[in-house]
Every structure is written in C-alpha cells, then in structure tokens.
C-alpha cells in the first residue's frame, strides 16, 4: 500500500479501514474499536531509523449510509509538521489496544504500508 504526501504538508491525513472480506465479524471489530487506543509508528525504509514512535492516532466515524446502520470507523493519524519535514520513503504501522478484552493488534498485517513523502518547492507564507 502506497500513501503519498508532500513534504511539510499535514494533509491528507493517513486513514485506514477494516478489510471486509466476508471472513470476519466486522461489527465486533468496530464495537471493540470504539473503546481502544491507537498509536502510529513510522521508520525510514532505507536507514531503518524511526521517524515517528508511538504517536497517538484516533478513530473517526464514517458518514452513515442509512439512519439505522451501525457505526463504522476509520483509524487515522493526523500528521504533525515534524513528521513530514524530510522527504523519503517510510514504512508505517499502527498498534491498536482493545481495552474491552485487553488485546492488541499491530496492523496492517498482510501488506506493508509505505508512506512516500515527496519534495515540495513551495513554502508556507506564514
């Protein structure tokens, strides 16, 4: 998975969602996610040096498709200026603590998440 963002830009936010392949109980996942803590880490793929270590992420509810539908969430990380100061290719991972059953999940599992921070030639006027 490839995520692209410009150097010094805090948008777009990094947003992940559950794989709904018909194999898991996705409602249970969202129920557990509602009472969880989420942290994000990111390391440079070339040097292996961590760039972001256990910074707090969050959950945010998706816009409901119908009034009576169950709530589903995205997992997100909102970039800070210092995270995107340097261009390069990074690998990111989330760790999710489920407080209901005291378990933790490190994801993504099947496919790595790569964050590509590309150079920018514009600077903020502020």
């Amino acid at each position: 998975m490839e995520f692209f963002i410009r150097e010094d830009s805090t948008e777009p936010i990094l947003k992940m969602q559950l794989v709904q392949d018909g194999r898991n109980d996705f409602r249970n996942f969202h129920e557990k996610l509602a009472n969880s803590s989420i942290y994000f880490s990111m390391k440079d793929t070339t040097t292996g040096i961590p760039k972001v270590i256990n910074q707090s992420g969050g959950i945010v509810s998706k816009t409901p498709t119908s009034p009576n539908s169950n709530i589903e969430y995205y997992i997100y990380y909102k970039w800070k200026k210092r995270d995107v100061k340097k261009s390069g290719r990074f690998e990111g991972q989330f760790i999710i603590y489920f407080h209901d059953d005291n378990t933790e999940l490190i994801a993504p599992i099947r496919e790595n998440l790569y964050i590509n921070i590309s150079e920018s030639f514009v600077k903020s006027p502020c």
Partner: protein
Amino acid sequence: MGTQNLNNYYHNRLDVKLNYSSYYDIFLASDEKDFNQQVVYSTSIIDATSGDSLPVWVDLASTDCCQQPTTNCTAQTASSLTHEFVIISKNYWPKAKSHCECPYTGSSTFSICDASWTGSDNGNIPPPFPNLPYCYNITNTPSTLQTFSPNVFFKKLKLHQIRPLTTGGILDTSIDTSIINSFDGSGYYQELRGGFYQGFYKLYGYPYEILPTRPNRGWSFETYLKINSVGSTLYSLDDSPPYNGQQGVYGNCYNTGGYNKFINWSGGVVINIMSSATTLCMEPGSNSLGINVPQNLLNYNPPTLPTTKGGFFFYKGVRAEDKWGFSGSNVDTYYPNLSACTSLSGVSGCCNTEELPVKLIRQNQSPNAQYDVYSNAVGFRLTDDMRIGYRTLRYTGHCETTGHTDFCNTGKTFVCGYMVEESYSDPICPFITQSGNCNDTWIQVDVVFKRNLELEDCEIFNNGGINDLIKVRTDKFQRYGTHKDGGIGPFGCNRASITPEVNPCNDQYPRFIEDAYFDFNCRGAQVQKWFTDNEYRLGTLTFYVNGRRVHQVENYEEIIPRQLNTNKQTQVGVAYNMSWGGGALGLSSALIPSTGCNEDWVKFTPNSDQTLIKDNFGGTFMGGISQMMYYIKPLTPDEIYHNFLINKSRYALIDCEECKNCDGGCVDCDLLN
C-alpha cells in the same frame, strides 16, 4: 475398504490453509472526506454552534450562562434567604417555541398565571398572595433584566436553584440546598452542598416547548463533575486489618450522600471515615443513626442509612406527583375551603381565546398519583462507591396465572404495575477513585441513549410514543379524528374559527382532560398498545467517564417524558423537567392553601402514593459542577473522546484506560492533540 490413516492414505497427507477469519486487518482508505470532520479538525466541542443538535450548553465560567454570584454557607443557609441562582443555556433549539403562533393581540409577553398553583413547590416562585398570582412569563425577546429572572422564560433553557419552602412560604432551613461559588484552573464553577438546578423545557398546553420531548434517534448528556476521591492515605480509627488505611476503597471523600460511610467494593466490608463531612454547609449531627449524620441533606429525609438516593447528577421527567389530583392527603383537611377553587379565569389562551376555569382539586384521571410517574422519570447517579448508572420507575405489564381469561392465554390475566429499574457500572476509573487524597478531581461524564430505530414525524408520537396511552373522549372524537362514514368536519385545529374555543389551536391537541386523557386501564386498548409498541422504545444506554465507555445497557427502554393526567392549569411546570446536580424534590416541599383558594399556604402532606419521586430521586450530587451539555442526538464514541480532548487541559482530565497501561500509573499520558 480398509481403515484409513496417514500411512495408507494416498492423497496429500497434510495440507495447510491460512484462515483469515481469526484476525482483523486494515488497509489504506481513500482520501474521500466521508467521515466526521469535526472529530479530526474541530477545536471546539462537537456541534458547539449548532442548536439543532446541541440546544443546551451551560458553562458556569461563561457570563452568558451564569451571573457568577459569590456566596458562602452562612448566606446560603440563612432563613431570610429568598434569592435563588439562575443559569441559562448558551444555545437554543431553532425549532423552539416560546410564544403564541396563533394571532395574539396581547403584549409580547404571554403570561401563565396558573403557575401559582405549582410554582412554589420547588421554590421557583413564592406562593401567591390573595388575588395576586405569580406568573410565568414567556417571550421570544427577553430584556437584559429578564435574562436571569426566575419567572421569565424564552428559547434558551433556564434552570434555577431549588428552594424547599414550608408553611407561610418561607425557606425550609431543615433541608440544606446550598450552592457555593468556587474557582480553580478551570475557571469559575460551583460546589453543590445539597443544592441543585432544575427547570422545565415544555409547558403542556401552553405555547412553550424549547426541546423535543422525544428526539429522532436519541440524546446525549455530558457534564463535568468535581469529585473528592478517597485515597490510600486516609486513616480511620474504625478500620481494622486488612482495611486500615482504606487501600482498595472507592468513594467520594464527602461522598455523594454527604455521609462518610463506604462499602469496600471487593470485600463488601463497611468502612467508616469520620472526618470529611465538614465540607457540608450545615454541620452533621448525632442521632440514633450514629454520629456525623448529615441530617439536613435531602438524601436523609427520612433518615435511613446508608442512603440509596445520593449522587443524582442528571434527572429528566416529571418533577413531582399531582398534589391536587387525589384524595387522601391533607388537601382533604381543607376540602370545605378548596372544593370550589378553580384555575384563574380571563383571556388566557393563544388565538385570544377565553379559557374557562377548571376545578383545582381531584381532577386527575389516573387510578392514583403513582401512574403519572411510571416510565416518566429517570435519574442518573454516581453512587457512594463510585459506580455510575441510572434509576427509573418502569411501568410494567405481564401475564399472571389467575384462573381468569382475558388478553392472555386461558387461565391468565394481564396485570400492570411498576418496578424500580436500575443498573450500575463497576467502580469507575480506579486511577482516580483509589489514588486520591481527598483532592478534588474533575471528571467528564457522558450518558448516551441511542434508539435502535430512528423515528420521524408522527412516528415519534405514535410508534411507542405517548399517543399510545391517550384516549380521546367519544363525544369529542369528531374534533380530532375522521369518522368512518366520512361525516362532515371540521376536524382538528381550526385557527380561523369564529368560536376558537370549539376548535382549539394545534398546540393544545388534544386538550387534557376535557377532550382526552391517558387511559391506564390495564386491559384497555391503550395500555396494550403501549406494551406492544415496546420495540420502538428500545435502544442502548451507554455511560462514559473521561471519554471511555464504562457501562452499557442493551435493550434499555427509553423514558419518554409526558404530561400529568390532568388539566394543564394545575400542572404548570411540573412535567418535562430537567435537573442538573440532583434529582427531584417530589412533593416533599409542596404547599397548599388552607383557608381560601390562594390564602395561608401550609405544607402539603403527601398521600402514601405521592412519594415515589421523593423516595427514589430525592438526592443530590455533592461536589463541583462546571458544564452541562444536552445533545438531541446520540453522540458517537469518537465524538465523546473529541470533547474529552478539547476539555482535557481545562480540567486536567486523565484517560483512565491510558493510565491503566502505564507503568506505575501515569499522570501525563500522551494523548491525541
């Protein structure tokens, strides 16, 4: 065919297939903005400026909501005290109604002077002098002076400090309802020392409705409470090993009941802590129940220990039973003087209608006073041992084997009644409640009700709503319904009628009790429909502390506030109430006239069926209050956590789950900015 085993089976002997069903995985989502953007980007609380979803937001630190009075215990407990604190909401519901919609030629203020009959029961207004009623005045445009006036109401919810009165209309100093001003890093706030705030958001039959009685999807209540948690450093002579030092004790130092008695959660061992009731305005005394009994608190009247009524921080529903409606109380004592009393006469309706006076006493249509409380009151509380939950008086119906045949199967009868329904969490956030040293700690509390089904328009009233219980009198049916044979109307509201009294405005649809009433006949069609429609009232009730879920009640049946089963004139301001920091007085401080219809007010002595509210909700939260929000939508967990993050610095809040995972307990957990 011989027996198969691994040695003689000629196909693949071992095959492995990765089973994806046992774990969850995530993938990168699109950049689409199909999510709640306030949660990610907003720097204020959810829907801060939207009255459509947040119609009530009271912040005591804001002068828009509170005049920020300064006071002390001496002033609050003085018998000469007449002033009550008044607070108002910053926001209002855009659909709120606080004036006549019909053509009305009166002044811009609509007066409801029948408020005199009930308005003094919680100290909102004094009892009237002869021929000088105290009125509620409603308006769309209050003047500056009227903003915090206790008897002028407009679109913003107004709450006032309750004041128990006694014979002669003077303050009852045997009940401490003090509220003290205070200040800390969060700004101005108030300490409740037995007092609390209460107000109504709808006046049945009058053009005043500033909140929906049954929101489409549900509602949410959020508040910030300052608790004094018991810590491991408190000592008491009464404690014996292994409980000396109170390790493992949960509780509020001057706890929710004001009495220093705690029950150890794990061991069920009662522990007395003798020293902390000094924070009360009226010093506790000694009586047959022991020493340090806070006998002036509402919770201890009548005094029973330990209290099961303390800690109500939010209450919704009817604030008292109908004191006029039934025989059996001391209204009977004064019956010769009161039997001919009526409500006030004169032009008093919208559309310039002259409303005929109605009789004051014995007009309630319910079998007894308790019926007005059934499924019409719910209180949320923090118990003495720091568990959070709710209490309601649920109207119940079920089949019993009796040998008769009715609506149930052969040999069974459908019987109705009520039950006290409550549910509580485990002790909340041990990091706060166990590690304190009677230091004040702010917590954010959220209560969210989400109905399983979203309802629209008429469904709100008809699907499990209060219309289920309403019976329109047969002789008045033409006014409200359509005849099967297509008979000639008019039907319903007709504002332009020459005789508007015949066709009332829609805000009086249908008029209680002249045209309709709640029919509580247990075997009647109305009650049967009420119970059959139960599924439309079901939902999930969830409690959060500091943004984290601590308790969830599935299939909770919502409480839909409704009016009393009597004339509108004798119930002004009694139904559709909301309390912050306490429950309700019930009829414990009600007054009735003794010699004339509005003369010589004496204390009301309730009948045995007029004490349900006092007995079950007559308690208060002891501690600090700062903000309250009432949303007319169910907040989602991410929205609640967002509000937690917004107010985290102001109140020095901690995330109880985060701290759970920190080594040695963490004070400053790294939270999302």
